[in-house]
């Protein structure tokens, strides 16, 4: 449960689309301790505006101590991050939260939508060493080919077959990843989903009906990421609240009250 604050030099940095960026940061302590599904809190610059760190899933870690993030430019913080260049540093706190938990010999179905694909690569890598990796299903969706194709490649490189869907049909199945799920998931699959809330809610419901165990990685606004501010609440099944940074970000889908 060790957590670290590390000033992490940017090792490499690539722009997958005009607003999706992958950045590799040298942070060996975090890289070693990280488990799939965990996240880091990232300081977007040294000014006090923006004030708070931003949470990002750990997209991957490398053997030589790099933590890789995949993010989309959506506001002030990500805009500032995107201005940084190789050699400059980013201040990270992590690894944080509870990640995915999979039994090694159960086949898994990973379902990712948009930036929700980020944590699944790290998870898929961990699953490579499971007894029958070919039994896992990887289902990825995004809006367009540009956003999806480079990510699909990463999973294929790990040796997985990947089923892809795009909203505009420019790559893979024309439609939603939920449709891929109906087609490719089996009752034996343990399901891990990350993406927009409507996607996760739909998958969670389908799993409930079909009897699959399902884990979902949730997002909320976070101030601390450390379980201290109590700001990152979601409504829990059966009443009350849970905190995404501490009880999650990965929850058993049954713990969550899906309101959408």
């Amino acid at each position, binding site marked *: 449960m060790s957590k670290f604050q590390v000033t992490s030099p940017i090792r490499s940095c690539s722009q997958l689309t005009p607003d999706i960026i992958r950045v590799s940061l040298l942070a060996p302590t975090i890289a070693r301790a990280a488990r799939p599904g965990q996240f880091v809190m990232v300081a977007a610059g040294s000014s006090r505006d923006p004030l708070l760190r931003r949470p990002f899933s750990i997209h991957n870690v490398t053997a030589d101590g790099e933590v890789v993030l995949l993010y989309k430019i959506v506001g002030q913080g990500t805009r500032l991050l995107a201005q940084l260049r190789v050699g400059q540093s980013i201040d990270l706190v992590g690894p944080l939260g509870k990640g995915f938990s999979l039994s090694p010999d159960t086949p898994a179905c990973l379902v990712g939508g948009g930036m929700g694909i980020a944590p699944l690569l790290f998870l898929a890598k961990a699953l490579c060493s499971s007894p029958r990796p070919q039994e896992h299903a990887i289902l990825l969706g995004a809006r367009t080919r540009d956003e999806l194709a480079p990510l699909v490649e990463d999973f294929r490189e790990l040796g997985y077959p990947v089923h892809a869907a795009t909203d505009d049909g420019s790559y893979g199945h024309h439609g939603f990843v939920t449709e891929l799920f109906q087609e490719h998931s089996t009752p034996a699959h343990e399901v891990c989903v990350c993406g927009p809330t409507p996607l996760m809610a739909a998958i969670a419901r389908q799993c409930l009906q079909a009897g699959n165990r399902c884990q979902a990685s949730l997002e909320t606004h976070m101030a601390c990421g450390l379980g201290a501010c109590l*700001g990152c609440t979601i*409504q829990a099944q059966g009443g*009350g609240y849970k905190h995404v940074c501490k009880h999650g970000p990965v929850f058993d889908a049954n713990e969550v009250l899906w309101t959408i």
Partner: protein
Amino acid sequence: MDNLNPSPDLRVNIGRLELANPVMTASGTFGYGREFSSFVDLDRIGAIVVKGISLEPRAGNPPPRVVETPCGMLNAIGLENVGVEQFLVRKLPFLQQIKCKVLVNILGDSVEEYVALARHLSGHQGIDGLEINISCPNVKKGGVAFGTSPEMAAAVTAAVKAATDLPVIVKLSPNVTDIVTMAKAVEDGGADGISLINTLIGMAIDATTRRPRLGNIIGGLSGPAIKPVALRMVWQVASNVRIPVIGIGGIGTTEDAIEFLLAGASAVQVGTANFYAPSAADTIRQGLADYLSDQPEESLGELIGSLIIEDGS
């Protein structure tokens, strides 16, 4: 060049409460200490003030509960806490193992609740004092916050003092016309110290969805944005009461802490800064030691209230 003062004395007293140094952590921003043990040496800071505790557990407000604002943040946590029983069972044991002082922040809906909390929390090893959060509405008095009425604030202070032997700090709300009157009222009520400021009341709106950004609509503003207001109130209060004052509001650097000490605070609490700089309390403690080692003062106490005001201008 030699340091003027190689091993400076950072100790300060808040009434009977002696702190190894003036750096405390603010209620609601440092969990129950444990959450920060990777970043802060809990044995070396002055004191931890734990998240506000009520008699019964509280679930808190619906999400979203936090939103960023320019150089600040709004929170509407809604005083979520485990309740006093669970606090003693589940949280206190860890706090008993660390060397720094521990203050419990308490909150209630009536004077009776505050008194019951004070009784519950007295006589436990590991609890060194109480901080009364009077920003809560007094349900019996039509929901007016204790912290906006000098009479109610004095009454709750006196009642808590009568119910415990622990040092009692009263934490003031800044959302008042006259902070000095509030401070004098709780001094007269018998407070051993005053901490200020709690959050300013604010609001944020999402222009796209046309909805409030907080589930609770309004929330408490904290962070660097409020520092000038906090510093002004600390200076006004410290100049007008005889009991020690603890400065809170936007403190994130050693320089911030020094400014509050100069204004008259005997100690400071680090709040929102813990979120964006989790080792802030440690950094400031070390920073104060380094600063003082270069100053003519031998002890931190001499710094308190030493703001120089040119007269005649």
